[in-house]
């Protein structure tokens, strides 16, 4: 008995000691803001009472949320767009990164160079990418308008001036840049024991069959991680919007993050209460999303093991 107790307490000390630094970082940087966001989303807090948020009262405590969902077209647009961007990263970016990783893993001539180049858009800051795309889309000095005019003279396409195109303009400034995801996947592919698929190859399986039947299932945990990171990027999309479209035209490219910024800091009214209410929604969505992705890949992994 005594010995068991001793081991247990040593274990406990170890657990606490190892968790402590991370929990400390969390507590110092995030704990207060988390509580603050949540609490002030039930407050009135804007430029009129900037240092003293005021509780809305029990009868009206959900006013910020109710207004967002019933009246605030910008919030509704932001919510829909953010969900669209999450879906698009999962449908386009992740499969694209997987495809490229599988292709590169065949080590064709130039694969190393291609791999390095693919990561470049991820290592240069999004601020630079934003500026570059802003200029590419510009009707006067960009290339898109020029190319469209070659195909259809006089069309004078202005990507960022049209509500539907602007959404895709923002989307294509990040969606194909899956370089770092590809790098993660590539690493995982190379760590697969070759004996696992050499046998299949001898049995006459095609490269495609090996990719689909053997490599892909083994990659699943990493695809799950990549999916979480990518979906998170889609949900939090901000820099590209701030730099390229500024949320426009007519607020058609608002994302949740951009809405939070616009409502809280980017407005003379400094409506932090509403911004934080949107922040709460964003966090809830994020947690649900991560839960869903984890559950999906976890469950599939278990099935494969059986």
């Amino acid at each position, binding site marked *: 008995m005594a010995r068991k107790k001793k081991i247990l307490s040593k274990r406990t000390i170890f657990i606490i000691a190892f968790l402590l630094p991370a929990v400390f970082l969390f507590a110092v940087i995030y704990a207060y*803001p988390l509580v603050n*966001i949540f609490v002030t989303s039930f407050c009135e807090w804007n430029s009129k009472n900037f240092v003293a948020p005021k509780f809305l009262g029990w009868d009206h405590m959900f006013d910020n949320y109710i207004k967002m969902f019933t009246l605030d077209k910008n919030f509704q647009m932001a919510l829909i767009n953010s969900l669209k961007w999450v879906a698009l990263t999962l449908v386009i970016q992740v499969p694209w990164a997987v495809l490229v990783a599988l292709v590169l893993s065949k080590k064709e001539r130039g694969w190393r160079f291609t791999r390095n180049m693919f990561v470049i858009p991820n290592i240069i*800051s999004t601020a630079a990418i934003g500026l570059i795309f802003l200029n590419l889309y510009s009707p006067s*000095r960009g290339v898109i308008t020029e190319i469209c005019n070659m195909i259809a003279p006089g069309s004078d396409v202005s990507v960022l001036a049209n509500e539907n195109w602007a959404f895709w303009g923002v989307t294509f400034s990040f969606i194909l840049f899956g370089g770092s995801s590809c790098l993660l996947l590539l690493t995982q592919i190379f760590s697969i024991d070759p004996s696992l698929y050499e046998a299949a190859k001898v049995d006459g399986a095609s490269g495609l069959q090996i990719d689909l039947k053997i490599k892909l299932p083994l990659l699943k945990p990493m695809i799950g991680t990549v999916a979480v990171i990518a979906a*998170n990027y889609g949900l939090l999309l901000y820099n590209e919007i701030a730099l390229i479209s500024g949320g426009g035209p007519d607020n058609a490219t608002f994302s949740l993050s951009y809405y939070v910024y616009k409502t809280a800091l980017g407005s003379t009214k400094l409506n932090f209460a509403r911004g934080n209410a949107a922040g709460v929604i964003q966090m809830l969505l994020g947690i649900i999303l991560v839960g869903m992705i984890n559950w999906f890949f976890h469950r599939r992994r278990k099935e494969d093991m059986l």
Partner: protein
Amino acid sequence: MMVSRGEIRRGQTPRKIRKERPESGNIGAKIFRYVIMAIVLFISLYPILWVLISSFKEKPGGLGLPEKWVFDGYITIFTELDIQTYFFNSIVITFVSTLISVTVVAMAAYVVARMEFRGKALVTLMFSTTLFIPAISISFPIYRLLGDLGLRDTRIGVIFIYSGLGIAVTYFILQSYFMSIPKEMEEAARVDGCGYVGTFVRIILPIAKPGLATAAIMSFLNNWNEFYFASLLLKSPDKMTIPALLGQFTSAYSRNLNGMFSAIIVAVVPTIIVFCLLSETFVKSLTAGAVKG
């Protein structure tokens, strides 16, 4: 059809082909791979090449090469911007914060991945929420905290914040990696008389190198590109990072497109060079010591 042709070819000279290109398939697959690689190269390089070419134009923009090559933008940048200072700052801040972040999170992720204790789910939830907190919402408290600590407008302050910023992604990567390490390895170490800390340092960390390297790369990229806190917390020009500098380009160079395009190139090219030099080291550390199976 294609498959059978490939099989025939492989049948004729199996060894040679295998040796050269261990995983090459038939011609169609090969063409497909090159097409994909070409697309990757195009989307990755075109935007930057376009800016590079444009930066030499008198009137930046449009397709085609410059009619007259102009270097004005670069002359302005190099004579007036202390670009190497910004690079130095970016490198120091990113390296140190990445190291701290990965170390700290690795410890926590290991405990969660490997041990049963009460509140385990809470720890995961806690780290998950940090992924989605809007930067604006944490900026006030962070600003106040650093002010109280006297760390505003210092590199240490930014390092401190960056160490905590990416903990969620680092946590996810490391936790899933630790889970994939067979338990038998620790049990063997335990039998050999290793303590918890000893097992972690001597057994787990070496095995987890690819995972650690992966997490470090992600964290590094995040911190390297971080813009919001850098521009909020760093006010002195001698402490600023590359992204904070880029943020100024839009306003500072809006009258001087040539300068803006050149500035983008100057900020981006050394990053690319450093990455290309480091990438082999990166990838080697990623594949070295990989767990089989």
